[in-house]
């Protein structure tokens, strides 16, 4: 445990020392993953599938605010969908516009959750997001960004799954018919509604529990959130016949619990055995204070003493005196 705590302190020290370089690097990596995921999942417009173009976009995100990842990702998605079908592009644009007007206008700082959520879905770990959001956010409003990301993921997944049908344009079809088809298929997606409801509920429960003034609040929040997600997903799967893979669900929940524990280790590692309770008063109030110390290990400063031949030159006589032997014995 001490080793882990030392590693944690070293990581924290490293991050705070090199924050100025790490932040752009993390933004670039997130942008690269996002843009290449869009390319592999959609990729309908070959002109913007160029690796160089995507890399330039991703690297430019290192210098721009984090929200530009969302803007570039939205533009790439719309261009790919335009190449597939005007109706699909229009539906996606309108959904994004509604999200922007109703939510992202107020909380642009959290808009990158809308990118992280589809990525979590693609990697089959959507359950990580409610746990992470519930643990790390002061306000539950950012859960809405997660919902927006989920909606975009299901919209794009539906369009990709029916790409051939959407792209084919028969004589009877008009843009409006296609628009209606895409929209109906999106709005009638029961899996999306059930999944988003589960994730929102889990995020709210995690957020509520970790704020409680009880011992091991974070651990309780993580375990309850994960169990809730597992149970509700299983119930929804049985009731709605969603056909979700049980192994994938269980693995996703386990990963979310592990991520939650890692977050707890880094941000809320308390020693409950040394809890102190104090009471005091002033003119207006009586205070009951419970103080729980953080587990902290100061990094060991290792001093390395170098013994090099150049610095440690010693005469034969001195060496013989030091070893208390005859000087002639040093001749071999």
């Amino acid at each position, binding site marked *: 445990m001490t080793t882990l705590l030392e590693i944690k302190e070293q990581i924290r020290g490293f991050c705070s020392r090199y924050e100025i370089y790490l932040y752009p690097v993390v933004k670039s990596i997130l942008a690269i993953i996002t843009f290449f995921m869009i390319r592999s999942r959609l990729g309908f417009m070959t002109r913007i599938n160029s690796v160089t173009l995507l890399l330039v976009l991703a690297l430019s995100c290192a210098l721009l605010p984090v929200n530009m990842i969302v803007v570039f990702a939205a533009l790439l998605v719309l261009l790919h969908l335009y190449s597939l079908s005007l109706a699909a592009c229009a539906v996606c644009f*309108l959904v994004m516009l*509604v999200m922007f007007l109703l939510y992202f206008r107020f909380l642009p700082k959290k808009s990158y959750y809308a990118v992280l959520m589809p990525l979590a879905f693609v990697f089959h770990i959507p359950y990580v997001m409610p746990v992470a959001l519930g643990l790390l956010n002061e306000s539950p*409003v950012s859960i809405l960004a997660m919902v927006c990301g989920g909606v975009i993921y299901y919209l794009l997944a539906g369009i990709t799954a029916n790409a051939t049908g959407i792209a084919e344009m028969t004589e009877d079809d008009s843009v*409006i018919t296609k628009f*209606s088809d895409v*929209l*109906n298929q999106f709005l009638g997606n029961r899996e999306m509604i059930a999944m988003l409801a589960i994730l929102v509920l889990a995020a709210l429960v995690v957020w509520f529990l970790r704020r409680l003034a009880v011992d091991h609040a974070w651990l309780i929040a993580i375990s309850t959130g994960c169990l809730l997600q597992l149970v509700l997903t299983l119930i929804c799967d049985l009731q709605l016949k969603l056909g979700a893979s049980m192994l994938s669900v269980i693995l996703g929940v386990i990963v979310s619990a592990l991520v939650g524990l890692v977050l707890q280790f880094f941000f809320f590692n308390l020693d409950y055995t040394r809890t102190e309770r104090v009471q005091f008063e002033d003119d207006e109030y009586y205070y009951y204070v419970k103080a729980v110390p953080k587990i902290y290990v100061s990094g060991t400063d290792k001093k390395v003493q170098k013994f090099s031949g150049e610095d440690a030159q010693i005469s034969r006589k001195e060496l013989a005196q030091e070893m208390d032997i005859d000087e002639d014995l040093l001749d071999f």
Partner: protein
Amino acid sequence: MIHNERVRHMVQLQAFNDRKGNECFPIVRYFRGDYVGLHMLSSFVSATVCYGIGLLMWGICNMEMLMTSIHTMDLRQFATRIVLRYVIFVVLYLIAVYIYAQIKYTRAKKEMKSYNRHLKRVIAGYERDGGEA
């Protein structure tokens, strides 16, 4: 001569500028009522546009039904229903925005109190040293 105490406060001020300055300074320029009112006004426009988009989507999805029953349906009742839903949607959204704007303004004011405290100490430090800087 470097005044350690003053430097400490100035570092706090700069840290606030970097972390929360962009968020707090534009908010506290307004009176509370003006800030909340401005948010609600822009949100009213946003909510109206969004409702329009939703209505458009619904209309396109149900185009066939609308075309076949437009001559038989009670248009006044239909319009009343649309307007009523619009009012409910806008009112609910504006209530949420009102709460959000109030909380945001209160938080910004609270943050600015700490900023002003450091600022006052820096100014007091300069005055104590007779304007030496």
